[in-house]
């Protein structure tokens, strides 16, 4: 970077206007951290309001070797949105317009700063939805979700971000701050190499997303929901098989193992009559078929050994009856338990993000439990069983060196376990800084070290000077 | 630290005069004159003067807003270098909207009449109806607040009452949930008039034969979230024969009117109020407020709003 920090900030102010640059140290720190616990200190935050702002910023940064760190709501858990070296955070929070919703074309055209729930609130008025629903949807932005390749509870049925982004407007970190559009506003699109999918999940390392054409889909007419508790892990796996063998693709299928259910219930004061391994299944149905599916779901889950079973006709009813309370308590319970265990002021909760083929669920959970014993790290295990995505989480005190070291080793072994079971090290949270070694490991495991080389080449192609979110992913 | 100026202005006034803006004590209790309420008693009505002060505070906010507008962007608190000189509180107070003053006095009279109609026996405090000191509390002027609270508590205790009836969300919250923390041995029972009316609903009679109308309810944050008063106003409005509509954000998840930052940042306050007003208008129906701050703040952005006490008294008296 050329020029001293004060000069850079002044330069940015005259480039974009004073109101689009904040350099108050304490405020900048708010943009230099993540829930993962990682933190640093950028020079300043800029708030582009138009694609032109972004393009001029890119050009300016290129000419001065200034590092740019794109950011949505910085809820990333992988280290991807924390600035590493001296540089400037580019916050997209002011580019939050929904410029078009077309039900006929099944698309929404939105700015990167739109929050996913906000979009869904608008779409719901038309009976539509954007189905990718990370647990952080209340705060996560479209730009952030695209770039971290987010998924959610409904992913078994609807997939992840890569299945719902049709087109993008991008700004490249090059000499001209090139603005380009890739993809289409039609569902079908054969535009040579698929640059849209390349950007999805690229964690802000290739280009800045300034607009997205998203695919939308009708809200299901009705969703019947069942909440079941099982004595044995094996039963849960059988239930998953039983549901799938009847050619039903559930709308959602969430899991928490027994220890986690007990811990969460205790931590958050949730009454659970007969604790066991929890399975929460939702199936979208036509209204007329409600009765039939409620009956079928109940029968199927009971036949596979559910000891306690609750069924609701609609999502609303399931909400009112508190079916989601346990699942949603996972994150707060993790925080609470970690604090109780660590007993110090600041704790970190590490949320892992592996996936295994759903058929290996039992092996995965048992493997995780034995790692828990090995490292003495109380672990909460919840996840999306529909797609095999598990989020084992541990809380720890980062200042406790012994604990921190154990967590690091645990972390490596969890990834190893996933690979051994034919899975992947990251399903939806991304690579960021925390999983760079894991990514290498995964490709080595696949005998495909070359893939990383290709990726590095792509990075150079998009970002010749290495100024856009450097130090992440590859 | 420019915000100090606005704060110190208000705080200084509370310390000197008992009120955040300089008004005659007479203006605080004159609303009650036509009612001949007894003085004191086992239960006393304590308004905390917030309804009465709202028009004057509003006038101050309008004034701050015009100052803020004159400078390029930025919070009132930032421009305030010369604030002490610019603002002559006396003049600001003189400019309060007489219509608004009349309206809030009518609200208080309606509340009093409703309580009587519900068979509640109570008295009034007249010149002892002091300001609760809520702004000192909000702004973190802890010691000043503790001193003021002690004074208020002593006055209330001296009245001999064991039950204090409050009429607005801020005073209710401060008296019921905050005073016990700040005033040693504060043991008076505090109830809001909506709670009392709801308890005595059987003694009230809706007027016959009059067609009801649709109202849309704006829950004040301090009722809904801090004091758990959500059902009572709905029950009363329905009992009065009105059709109650809910805005998208209501009950516990209500959306603030923006009032609490009106003095620190009038423009921010305005934008929040505009957003809320649009939301309320979108529902259709007459907009019901239950707090003097909500009332003036939504009015300041052009809202046609009316206090719940006026709706209730029209239908129940």
């Amino acid at each position, binding site marked *: 970077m050329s020029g001293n920090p004060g000069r850079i900030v002044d330069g940015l102010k005259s480039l974009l206007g004073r109101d689009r640059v904040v350099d108050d140290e304490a405020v900048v720190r708010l943009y230099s951290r993540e829930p993962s616990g990682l933190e640093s200190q950028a020079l300043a935050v800029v708030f582009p309001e138009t694609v032109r702002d972004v393009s001029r910023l890119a050009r300016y940064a290129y000419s001065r070797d200034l590092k740019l760190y794109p950011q949505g709501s910085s809820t990333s858990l992988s280290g991807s949105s924390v600035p590493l070296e001296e540089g400037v955070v580019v916050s997209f929070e002011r580019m939050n317009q929904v410029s078009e919703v077309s039900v006929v074309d099944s698309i929404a055209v939105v700015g990167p700063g739109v929050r996913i729930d906000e979009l869904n609130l608008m779409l719901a008025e038309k009976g539509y939805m954007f189905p990718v629903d990370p647990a*952080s949807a209340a705060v996560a932005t479209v730009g952030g979700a695209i770039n971290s390749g987010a998924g959610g509870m409904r992913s078994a049925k609807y997939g992840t971000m890569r299945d719902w982004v049709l087109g993008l407007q991008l700004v490249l970190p090059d000499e001209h701050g090139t603005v380009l559009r890739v993809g289409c506003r039609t569902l079908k699109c054969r535009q040579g190499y698929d640059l849209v999918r390349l950007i999805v999940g690229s964690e802000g390392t290739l280009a800045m997303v300034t607009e997205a054409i998203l695919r939308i889909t009708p809200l299901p007419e009705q969703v019947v929901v069942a909440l079941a508790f099982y004595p044995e892990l094996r039963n849960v796996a059988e239930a998953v098989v039983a549901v799938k063998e009847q050619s039903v693709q559930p709308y959602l299928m969430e899991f928490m193992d027994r220890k986690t259910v007990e811990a969460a219930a205790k931590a958050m004061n949730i009454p659970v009559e007969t604790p066991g391994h929890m399975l929460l299944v939702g199936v979208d149905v036509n209204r007329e078929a409600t009765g039939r599916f409620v009956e079928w779901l109940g029968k199927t889950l009971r036949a596979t050994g559910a000891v306690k079973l609750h069924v609701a006709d609609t999502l609303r009813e399931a909400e009112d009856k508190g079916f989601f309370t346990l699942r949603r308590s996972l994150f707060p319970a993790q925080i609470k338990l970690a604090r109780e265990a660590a007993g110090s002021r600041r704790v970190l909760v590490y949320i892992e993000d592996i996936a295994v083929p759903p058929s290996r669920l039992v092996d995965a959970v048992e493997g995780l439990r034995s790692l828990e014993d090995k490292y003495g790290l109380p672990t909460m295990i919840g996840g999306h069983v529909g797609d095999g995505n598990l989020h084992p989480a541990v809380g720890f005190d980062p200042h406790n060196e012994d604990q921190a070291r154990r967590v690091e080793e645990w972390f490596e072994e969890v990834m190893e376990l996933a690979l051994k079971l034919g899975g992947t090290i990251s399903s939806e949270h991304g690579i960021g800084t925390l999983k760079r070694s894991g990514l290498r490991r995964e490709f080595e495991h696949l005998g495909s070290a070359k893939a990383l080389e290709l990726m590095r080449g792509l990075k150079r192609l998009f970002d010749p000077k290495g100024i856009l979110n450097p130090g992440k992913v590859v | *630290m420019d915000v100090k100026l606005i704060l110190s202005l208000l*705080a200084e006034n509370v310390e000197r005069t008992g009120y955040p803006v300089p008004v005659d004590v007479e203006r605080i209790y004159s609303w009650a004159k036509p009612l001949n309420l007894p003085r004191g008693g086992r239960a006393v009505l304590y308004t905390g003067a917030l309804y009465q002060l709202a028009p004057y505070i509003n006038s101050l906010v309008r004034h701050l807003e015009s100052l803020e507008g004159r400078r390029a962007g930025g919070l009132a608190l930032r421009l305030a270098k010369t604030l002490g000189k610019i603002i002559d509180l006396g003049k600001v107070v003189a400019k309060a909207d007489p219509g608004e003053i009349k309206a809030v006095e009518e609200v208080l009279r309606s509340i009093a009449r409703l309580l009587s109609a519900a068979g509640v026996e109570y008295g009034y405090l007249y010149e002892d109806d002091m300001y609760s000191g809520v702004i000192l509390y909000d702004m973190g002027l*802890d010691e000043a607040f503790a001193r003021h609270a002690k004074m208020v508590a002593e006055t209330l205790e001296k009245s001999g009452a064991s039950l204090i009836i409050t009429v607005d969300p801020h005073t209710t919250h401060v008296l019921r949930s905050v005073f016990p923390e*700040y005033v040693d041995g504060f043991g008076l029972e505090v109830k809001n008039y909506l709670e009392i009316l709801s308890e005595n609903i059987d003694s009230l009679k809706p007027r016959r034969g009059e067609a009801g109308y649709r109202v849309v309810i704006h829950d004040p944050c301090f009722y809904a979230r801090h004091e758990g008063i959500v059902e009572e106003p709905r029950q009363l409005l329905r009992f009065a024969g009105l059709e109650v509509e809910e805005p998208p954000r209501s009950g516990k998840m209500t959306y603030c009117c923006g009032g609490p930052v009106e003095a620190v940042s009038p423009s*921010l306050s305005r934008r*929040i109020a505009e957003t809320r007003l649009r939301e309320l208008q979108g529902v259709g129906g007459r907009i019901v407020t239950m707090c003097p701050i909500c009332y003036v703040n939504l009015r300041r952005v052009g809202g046609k709003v009316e206090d719940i006490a006026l709706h209730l008294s029209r239908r129940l008296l």
Partner: protein
Amino acid sequence: MAAWGRSRLLEEAGKCAYCGFCEAVCPTLPYGRHRGYGPRGRVLLTAHLARGGKASPEVLSSIYTCLTCAACTLKCPAGIDIPALVRAARSLLVAVHEKTII
């Protein structure tokens, strides 16, 4: 309750996971210049002040524009009473500037 002192403030603010779940319901955030106008920012900035950090104009704006409406508290998975934190910070600021403020 009597405003929290420095150490209680830091303890409460230390519970924050920086998840941002509180932000969507905050009335001031959409109209503010930055994250400091929302609960997530406010929690961290109160801690910043409690640790003796600079009370810059941006920090003050953040702390004094809070409505103490508590919408955020209902959404916070860590159960943080954000209005109480904000008042504690305001009272710290008063204490620091005691001589000049009143």
